[in-house]
């Protein structure tokens, strides 16, 4: 991947000169806009909607918003975390079901909860290298319509039977099936290597960093309050298309309160109470993200492409960094990879945390956000684990998730990256328009498997 040379200084005026013709030979990729469908709690409004239906709806809304009917885009990239094997071309099928030109190529990509952001990184890179002029990045996920698999015993027996050449051999293969093999397997969010659910993993990290219940509930409250305010102010009017009768994210609780959140019983980390390092369990359904259905898309392009169609340019996709951590034996928390990615991303771009007007940190759990911030403020940790000279720094809470995040909106795994990116792009554009100064946002998404993706965007 091409890297951008750090600018000479770190002050805003000197770092914001890059525009149309970067010295490293790549051109700018810009975010034109985004579109998603409202996110819905699992088993509710979208209970019978498939991934393809939801992604097509989000894509079609984007096409309508920017007048892309019949347009041949360079690429549409997206994916789903919980994906049926028949959806091997989920995104291409969605393109064919949309009013984009059928000559628009597409491919599926998957990086757990970072799928959406990774798709945007991929599209932005193609644009920057001049391989394409415009593309869509996105993601979709349904827990309600999740694929159901057969047990390993039944699967092997069926495969052996289908490979068998004679009837007796086929029957022999099938005779291995036991009644217990007939139980269907529903997808689990457990980490395959540890057997711990994501919530249990976070509960361990939460305990290790001593994050309190109160702090987590405050994050959850802020998420709901801010997302509700953003909906009220019309912020999402040009970012969301209604779907199946839903016009707003239905996980949003505008009237929630610290009292209500405090009344909820812990759901994760309950078995840690006997362990040496653990305090009382602190993670509840209120400060953890619910299972959600939904889809999102983001339109990226070269400046020239956007200008030739009189389309707006919200932000420039500056750079991105992914990371992975060794969580299997507890060296690092499962959801801590962005903590490692961001310092590398900042160093490469000659930036510090103080250089961002907005910081979007995906709220897998309120505690994920809090451990991320606490880790960056911990000098000893930053030296030992991140190889820094000292603490990475603090972030003004008023710059973090200013329009709410996943705790309130919900988190359809692969759709979250697109939701955050479109929100951040609109935020920096509005800020820059308001102040006349460039504005910049940092985006961070943690993911299963100890993965994380992060990106920098700035007003274009």
């Amino acid at each position, binding site marked *: 991947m091409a890297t951008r040379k750090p600018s000479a200084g770190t002050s805003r005026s000197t770092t914001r000169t890059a525009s149309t013709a970067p010295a490293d030979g790549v051109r700018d990729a810009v975010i034109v806009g985004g579109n998603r469908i409202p996110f819905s709690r699992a088993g509710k409004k979208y209970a019978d909607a498939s991934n393809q239906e939801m992604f097509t709806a989000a894509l079609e809304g984007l096409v309508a918003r920017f007048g892309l009917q019949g347009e041949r885009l360079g690429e549409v990239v997206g994916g789903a975390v919980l994906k049926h094997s028949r959806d091997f071309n989920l995104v291409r099928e969605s393109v064919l079901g949309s009013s984009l030109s059928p000559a628009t190529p597409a491919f599926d990509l998957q990086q757990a909860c970072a799928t959406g952001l990774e798709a945007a990184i991929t599209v932005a890179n193609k644009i920057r290298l001049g391989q394409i002029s415009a593309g869509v990045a996105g993601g979709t996920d349904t827990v309600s319509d999740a694929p159901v698999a057969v047990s390993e015993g039944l699967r092997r027996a069926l495969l052996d039977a289908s490979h068998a050449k004679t009837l007796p051999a086929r029957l022999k293969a099938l005779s291995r099936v036991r009644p*217990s093999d007939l139980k269907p397997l529903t997808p689990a969010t457990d980490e395959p*290597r*540890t*057997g*711990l659910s994501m919530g*249990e993993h976070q509960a*361990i990290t939460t*305990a*290790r960093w001593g994050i309190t219940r109160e702090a987590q509930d405050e994050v959850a409250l802020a998420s709901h309050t801010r997302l509700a305010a953003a909906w009220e102010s019309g912020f999402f009017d040009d970012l969301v298309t209604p779907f199946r009768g839903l016009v707003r994210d239905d996980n949003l609780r505008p009237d929630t309160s610290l009292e209500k959140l405090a009344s909820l019983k812990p759901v994760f980390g309950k*078995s*840690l109470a*006997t*362990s*040496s*390092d*653990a305090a009382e369990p602190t993670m509840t359904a209120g400060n953890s993200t619910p299972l959600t259905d939904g889809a999102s898309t983001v339109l990226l392009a070269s400046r020239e492409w956007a200008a030739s169609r009189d389309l707006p340019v919200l932000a420039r996709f500056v750079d991105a960094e992914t990371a992975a951590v060794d969580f*299997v*034996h*507890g*060296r690092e928390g499962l959801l801590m990879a962005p903590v490692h990615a961001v310092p590398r991303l900042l160093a490469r771009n000659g930036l510090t945390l103080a250089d961002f007007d907005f910081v979007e940190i995906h709220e897998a759990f309120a505690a994920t956000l809090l451990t991320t911030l606490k880790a960056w403020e911990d000098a000893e940790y930053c030296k030992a684990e991140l190889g820094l000279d000292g603490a990475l720094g603090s972030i003004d809470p008023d710059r973090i998730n200013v329009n709410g995040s996943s705790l309130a909106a919900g988190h359809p795994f692969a759709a979250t990256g697109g939701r955050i990116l479109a929100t951040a792009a609109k935020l920096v554009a509005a800020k820059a328009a308001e102040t006349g100064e460039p504005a910049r946002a940092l985006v961070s998404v943690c993911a299963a498997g100890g993965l994380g993706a992060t990106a920098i965007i700035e007003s274009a």
Partner: protein
Amino acid sequence: MTAGAPATGAGEPLRVETLPTLPALGGLYARGAAASGRIAAGRALPGLPVIGAGRTGDGTDTTERPLALPDVAYRVPSVATAPLARHLHDYQRLLHEPVTDVLPAGYLHVLAFPLATAVMVRGDFPLPLLGMVHLANDVELRAPVHLGDVLEVRAWAERLRPHRRGVQVDLVAEVRRAGGPEGDDVPVWRGVSTYLVKGFHLPSEEPGEPDPDQAPSGTWTPPLPTGRWALGPGTGRAYGAVSGDRNPIHLSALSAKAFGFPRAIAHGMYTAARALADVGHARGDAYRWTVEFAAPVLLPGTVDVAVTPDDPGFSYVGWNARRGRRHFSGTVTPL
């Protein structure tokens, strides 16, 4: 130890009896069960229940003949592993090992186990197979063993010694590459399984039921887990099928109840082998793998585990998080 002349750890020489092939475990268990009954009836180990016979022989027949282990080492000179591909891969999938043609140390234990069992079901073996409690295992894999290697397997019993709840004995098994140069007597794999023989009760406490009066949980605090195993009711049957170790205490609640367990219990070696697999590539090609067993894992059940880097190698521990009770602990150390 000199080449070709097996001896116990204490240096006592052993008579080598060569068998043409590894015995089949199914038949051994039938013999073991019968022998256990015979030993129980004849030797009257205190409080030793026998299937269908309740408690037998309490206080009778105490005419002591000192317990002595057979001075025999079994040897199977040529065990071909090439035909074992499917079996190996079944084992690897069950234990969460990567599916490769390299034999994990736990698989070699499974391979050698029937020969060790054959020692235990000999007529002159003084202890009942079905009353043995697996206390610990200490295994060294000194070089990688591959599918296709032809192996020599040896097994004998040694170090019969007192334990505060009865007696303990080591079953030693060794695996060598067959046809190695004469005098090259270093086994590539060596496993020592330590068993306690008492009644059918476990060393620390009554299995299963909470027992606050003698709960050792107060003396041990679990660490933060790195993993959690959800073990289904068929775990014992699945490992039994792969390992051949179909001891009734592992197979079903009913058969386990006959031996005083409230439900079926997981094979100790299953749990130790899962922990070994969890360490992954960091264990290297040659490693020492130890385990000590505490409270049994009742099935179905959830085991919290912590597999953590330790200098050198890894240490691991598994426990019941609800009761704070340890199931097993051990180490994996690269050699």
